[in-house]
């Protein structure tokens, strides 16, 4: 029996718990080789960066060993899933995680009847317990189970309403945690039953600390401003920033050796090269300034003839170079709005065009025609037409 628990504990301790017994033995060294976002997923609540308010409140509930129903919302890569998993782990410890926590996400079938059934079955199971006093001292193991509905914005309204009853019926022995990007996609009756926690886009200060930590552990050299570059390009999404960092590290020649772990002792080919802002922008798909400026120049009024040919040429090149239209629109917007040579009245007109084109792109309109139309119309406005 003891060895059974032992094995289970070991398994659960492995990140993501997906590794099996055989592989654990056979290529134990390899199990740790995973994308950095997973390698550096916060393991405890205090590892979670930049969500101070939420974490403080949750830590308090941890001490009180009671929990309301919860609703986490916020943009991608801000720590929602990590936080609930860390919280559950701290509440129950590795042994009880399986029997006390049910995670349902968008990759599970979540029609009305299935949700009802799965939740019911899970909720009705008897509460498991451990006898070891040491374990209980370490983990609060409160007398309820947690049901995590991750990525809940993809649940239909009907499935959500079906949950209302279920939530009430089993409220003595279960707590729900709903997670979503857009809080408006959660129906009111559900949302109002939960304490809401907003996860903010990561700001410079906090995200910076985390990235620098990772860079240090992975022995990646960073140029001045590179971290700021990462954060800007990732638009407050820490997951994105970490992925960019990993890719940049590989590019400058930091190659992980087998057997590498997160203890930081593993060897890395520490090449002399460091990660620069330019490399980061390149990886993030930021369009070089020159390219945008060429387009802007082509759009400016000329005395000789029309602007069509030069604009069409620039746009054609940009499309062939594969720059995503969203990126073009964002950067062109920056270039135009902050251009002091353009009069306010013209800017106002230009903004309307941006609004229209953005909507079209979201609807799936052709990127080439949309960008060309945008550029020609701005050009027309600049030319006083």
């Amino acid at each position, binding site marked *: 029996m003891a060895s059974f628990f032992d094995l289970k504990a070991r398994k659960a301790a492995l990140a993501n718990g997906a590794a099996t017994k055989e592989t654990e033995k056979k290529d134990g060294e390899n199990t740790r080789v995973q994308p950095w976002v997973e390698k550096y997923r916060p393991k405890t609540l205090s590892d979670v960066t930049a969500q101070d308010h939420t974490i403080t409140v949750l830590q308090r509930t941890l001490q009180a060993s009671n929990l309301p129903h919860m609703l986490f919302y916020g943009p991608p890569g801000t720590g929602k899933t990590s936080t609930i998993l860390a919280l559950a782990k701290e509440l129950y410890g590795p042994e009880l995680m399986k029997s006390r926590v049910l995670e349902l996400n968008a*990759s599970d079938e979540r*029609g009305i009847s299935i949700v009802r059934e799965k939740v019911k079955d899970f909720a009705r199971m008897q509460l498991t317990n451990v006898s070891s006093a040491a374990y209980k001292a370490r983990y609060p193991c409160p007398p309820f189970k947690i049901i995590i509905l991750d990525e809940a914005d993809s649940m239909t309204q009907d499935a959500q309403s079906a949950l209302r009853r279920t939530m009430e019926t089993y409220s003595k022995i279960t707590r729900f945690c709903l997670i979503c990007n857009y809080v408006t996609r959660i129906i009111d009756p559900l949302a109002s039953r939960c304490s809401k926690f907003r996860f903010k886009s990561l700001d410079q200060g906090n995200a910076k600390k985390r990235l620098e930590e990772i860079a240090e552990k992975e022995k990646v050299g960073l140029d001045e401003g590179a971290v700021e570059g990462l954060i800007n390009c990732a638009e407050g999404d820490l997951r994105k920033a970490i992925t960019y960092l990993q890719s940049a590290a590989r590019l400058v020649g930091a190659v992980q050796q087998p057997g590498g772990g997160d203890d930081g002792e593993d060897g890395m080919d520490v090449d002399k090269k460091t990660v620069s802002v330019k490399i980061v922008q390149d990886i993030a798909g930021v369009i070089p300034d020159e390219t945008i400026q060429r387009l802007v120049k082509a759009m400016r009024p000329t005395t000789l003839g029309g602007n069509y040919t030069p604009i069409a040429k620039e746009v054609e090149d940009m499309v062939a170079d594969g720059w995503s239209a969203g990126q073009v629109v964002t950067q062109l917007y920056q270039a135009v709005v902050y251009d002091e040579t353009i009069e306010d009245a013209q800017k106002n007109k230009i903004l309307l065009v941006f609004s229209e084109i953005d909507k079209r792109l979201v609807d799936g309109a*052709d990127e080439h025609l949309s960008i060309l139309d945008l550029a020609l119309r701005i050009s027309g406005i600049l030319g006083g037409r």
Partner: protein
Amino acid sequence: MALIVDKHRPRSLDALTYHDELSDRLRSLAQSGDFPHLLFYGPSGAGKKTRIVATLKELYGPGVEKIKIDARVFQTSSNRKLEFNIVASVYHLEITPSDVGNYDRVVVQDLLKEVAQTQQVDQSARQRFKVVVINEADHLTRDAQAALRRTMEKYSPNLRLILVGESTAGIIAPIRSRCLLVRVARPTVGEVEGVLRGSCEREGWEVREGLVGRVARESGRNLRRALLMLEGVYAQNEKVTDDTPIPPPDWEGLIEQIAQEIMAEHTSARILQVRSKLYDLLTHCIPPTTILKTLTFKLMPLIDDDLKPEVIKWSAFYEHRIKTGTKVIFHLEAFVAKFMRILEMYLMSMDM
């Protein structure tokens, strides 16, 4: 006989002839072992697929080239049976979920979990994870994309995804957040020329610089198109010179005709004539956006500069309607009518 587009396809990262920096980047990612999920995007004919296959080879060795096609049947919750083809080697799978339209979620959900939960069969495989290549990822429904989210995180020890699409616009933010984005630009005209010369040499065709240059320019930097054009010229002519004409594809010839016709006469009788040609194109599965764009860009050289922004404006307008509406032909015709009107007004104002 295989076409040269396929026959001469480079099979390893070293053999790729352009975007060397990108090849280096992919090599270093493949060699590092902690390979992230990737999202390849860029226009058609840029060489995305070739680059992915080369990356897979870098990851696993030549074994990935031994592929077979599996037909699988999936069951929807309403008990409908879906047939679905999977291209697979021992190390990777390639799927096009948009083949099953709105049922793509079922396929993605079931298949990926299954892959994630099975170990690499080949015990000596270089990577512990399997790769699943998802084509036309930008056409996946939102539900299917949502279904990928946790799967990409939870199963990352056993599974990596390579998503491929022309643009990132159709891909939801949480998925973009989980991938490293890899932009593949079309090769430059000079690079296209280089590839064309290489293919001529391998086929024992005499290199005609004039022709190579023209093909490269007319292809719009689309390498697949350029190679098909080149092969077409050599296949149809005994003797190839610098000025041998490059035959356009049939459908393009037809659109050229439409352009001429609507320039010449602006009447409803003419719209009627054009309609049958448009139908013809549609029944031959030319995508409506391609029809509208090709027509627009064939009209451009025929009209006055002053009119061009206006025509582009309406072309973009009706293309958007094609995407959001249901009756494609309405919007194509509306564009034709609008164009005639614009031209007519312009000509009248010139007369005054």
